[in-house]
């Protein structure tokens, strides 16, 4: 088999960091190659070079034997390279058909031939077994379907090589399985697939070969037949990683967080949390499993006072929390690791020192009345950087200069270092490397063992299953089932998440 894609000795440096160093990879037609690595390992930079979005400093990229011009995407597209980006590039207010034909519309005179376009989309969807409604508006569709549209968009141009940049980051387990099947079908029809991920399970399930990147270099190349998840994890981080979280039994006490008949709207004023009841006891971790968009975000924001409730009450240690008052709720002992650390959790232009007191800056010992106590701030930061293993040159470094995992450690350090009765952790390890995941998981367990009631919301079913003492399955704005950890099996939870009965 001749190589479809050859990446030969590609090096790319950005100011201050080597993103890719002397990387060589080949992908053959009909082959699925997984590009595995932690955040910042250089995966995205490499595929952007292939697609012509990034100009490498040295090295060559050949597609079907032809060298592509660096820094020009049209060359890659013309040679049959399709790319599905990590962040969807769809126009939400347009229909599925309009999105797919965007850029090269079938025309009749100066008008778009919508009939032909629609027929083309249907044919395309049938050919690859990717079901979509051509007339639906993109904004109304779940992310899994949106991704299918992205893939169809890429496949429309007779693609020989399909690049997928973290395609499963936003998918449910079922949607992920469907996508993996689509990838297998494509490979069977002769398309080469290069996909980026940091999820080991998917690699094991679908890849023919795995190339592991670490710090911009190829750390190893292997195949699922020759290794297992432990082996891959080791290649990724260069040391042994405990994949299975080690924790003792929970010793739950009284219910600390009590939610009764909660109703909350989403941004579009639709009911997202619809009469939810839940109790989290001190000393236990309750994991909320659910397909994204079933009200988890609204639930978390309502608990923390960042989103108005319509009705219902939320009690912390028996005391009702006020609506829309994050400051008061926080001072009642509710810590919040927000879903989006860059948006809510951090001020990236502030120093680590300031970020570590972001929501406690006006409390003792960090302030005496109106005046901030800089010595206490410095002492706090120095201690937490050490305790939470935040890798930074100094405490006055801005948070934006840190890597994803270390940014998250700043948030976790801030939220878990205070006296806390309730910990609300939303996607605490999203986009975080394996080493930091392990650390953050251990911190959450330590908070539990110290007597906090921990509510863990995560799109990663594996994370929930390995951390939670009880699993609450959320569907359609309600908790549809609560399972003890030992009865929460992957398949069962997956069925419940999809709204099916057990």
């Amino acid at each position, binding site marked *: 088999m001749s190589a479809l894609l050859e990446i030969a000795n590609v090096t790319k440096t950005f100011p*201050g*960091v080597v993103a890719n160093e002397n990387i060589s990879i080949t992908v053959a037609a009909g082959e699925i190659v997984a590009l595995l690595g932690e955040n910042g*390992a250089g995966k995205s930079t490499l595929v952007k070079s292939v697609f012509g979005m990034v100009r490498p400093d040295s090295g060559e990229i050949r597609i079907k034997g032809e060298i592509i011009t660096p820094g020009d995407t049209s060359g890659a597209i013309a040679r049959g390279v399709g790319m599905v980006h990590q962040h969807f590039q769809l126009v939400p207010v347009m229909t599925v058909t309009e999105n797919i034909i965007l850029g090269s519309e079938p025309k009749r005179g100066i008008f778009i031939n919508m009939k032909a376009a629609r027929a083309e989309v249907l044919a395309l969807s049938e050919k690859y077994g990717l079901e979509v409604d051509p007339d639906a508006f993109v904004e109304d569709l779940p992310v899994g379907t949106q991704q299918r549209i992205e893939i169809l968009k890429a496949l429309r141009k007779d693609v020989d090589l399909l690049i997928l940049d973290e395609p499963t980051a936003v998918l449910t387990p079922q949607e992920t399985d469907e996508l993996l099947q689509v990838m297998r079908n494509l490979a069977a029809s002769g398309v080469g697939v290069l996909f980026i991920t940091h999820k080991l399970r998917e690699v094991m399930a679908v890849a023919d070969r795995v190339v592991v990147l670490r710090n911009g270099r190829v750390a190893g190349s292997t195949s699922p037949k020759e290794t297992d998840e432990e082996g891959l994890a080791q290649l990724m981080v260069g040391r042994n990683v405990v994949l299975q979280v080690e924790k003792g039994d929970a010793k739950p006490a009284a219910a600390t967080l009590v939610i009764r008949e909660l109703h909350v709207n989403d941004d579009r004023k639709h009911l997202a949390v619809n009469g939810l009841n839940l109790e989290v006891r001190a000393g236990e971790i309750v994991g909320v499993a659910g397909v994204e968009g079933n009200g988890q975000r609204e639930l978390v924001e309502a608990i923390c006072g960042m989103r108005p409730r319509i009705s219902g009450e939320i009690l912390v240690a028996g005391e009702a929390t006020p609506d829309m008052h994050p400051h008061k709720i926080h001072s009642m002992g509710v810590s919040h690791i927000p879903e989006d650390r860059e*948006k*809510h959790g*951090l001020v990236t232009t*502030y120093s680590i020192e*300031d970020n570590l007191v972001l929501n406690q800056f006006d409390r003792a010992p960090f302030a005496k009345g109106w005046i901030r106590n800089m010595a206490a701030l410095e002492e706090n930061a120095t201690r937490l950087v050490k305790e939470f293993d935040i890798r930074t040159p100094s405490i006055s470094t801005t948070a*934006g200069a840190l890597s994803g995992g270390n940014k998250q450690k700043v948030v976790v350090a801030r939220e878990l270092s205070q006296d806390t009765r309730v910990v609300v952790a939303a996607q605490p390890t999203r986009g975080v490397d394996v080493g930091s995941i392990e650390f953050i998981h251990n911190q959450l367990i330590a908070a539990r063992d110290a007597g906090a009631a921990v509510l863990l919301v995560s799109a990663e079913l594996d994370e929930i299953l390995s951390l939670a003492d009880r699993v609450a399955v959320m569907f359609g704005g309600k908790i549809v089932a609560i399972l003890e950890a030992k009865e929460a099996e992957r398949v069962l939870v997956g069925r419940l998440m999809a709204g099916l009965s057990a």
Partner: protein
Amino acid sequence: MFLQGAQPMDAYGSLFSHGFGSWEGFAKTLGKATPLMLSGLAVTIGLRSGLFNIGVQGQLVSGALAAGWAGYAIQGLPIYIHLPIALLFGIFFGALVGWIAGALKAYRGIHEVITTIMINSIVLALVDYLAGHNFQEPGQTLARTSAVLPSATIPKIFGLPSGFFFAVLLAWAVWWVFQRTTSGFRLDTVGRNKNAAWYAGISVKRSVLIAMGVGGAIAGLGGAIETLGVIGRFEPTFNTGLGFDGITIALLGRANPLGVIPGAILIGGIRGASSSMQFDAGVAPEIVDLILALILFCVTAPFLSKWLRSTQVGAKVTSGWSN
């Protein structure tokens, strides 16, 4: 300047000898710099809180008129009561005008650039009208108020306008508030990341009201000092452009409250010397505006390009956890 037919060196010589060379010239520069510094400070507070307050002109002029009115209309008070009252009038009306734009933003979500432009137009027209009608000096045809009474005039120290020292002190105080106090941290956080501010329990609405109100108050004080300490009465034509130079100064100072001090002295010197440059070297006042625009461009361009680069590449530069 050369193209215009003037001798550039003569013009610069004139600029320095008049702006900074003599005691009177220096005093004049500092006098000019005072309202500029305060309007620069007002813009700076906005910038730090994530607001582009271009309504400083309106805030300053309403403060100037209010202080001018209080300066001649309230009579029979000793200076240590009358002067503070007149200053407070300026502060209050400046704050009010700023606060209106802040309230529209906080409660109605209208962008402050739009509201401040509108309010500028309204306030400037209203103030012109009042100075030409209701508050006009009796027997005057010009739109101007009566002269401020001695009991409301800001005294000079060694021939230097004392308002200047007060303005420097205020710039330092604002710097300190941002650096060391919880209120400053609140505004700063809102300015840098509104979502994180809300997460941290900081009320964005309140911060907008405070930043616009305090900014307006400082601008109003600038207008009051100009009226009570330099011009001696309110006359609309004397205040033109002060608020807009404030934007230049705030950008020159890179939104640092201490940065407005040198910025205001520089711009004040150039503005103060513009008439003598015209007289000595034949430089048209428009050329002075041009020079100011060039300064602004040169100072902000590297700042802007750096900012652009950091936002584009920043995401890619972050590296893995191992370093």
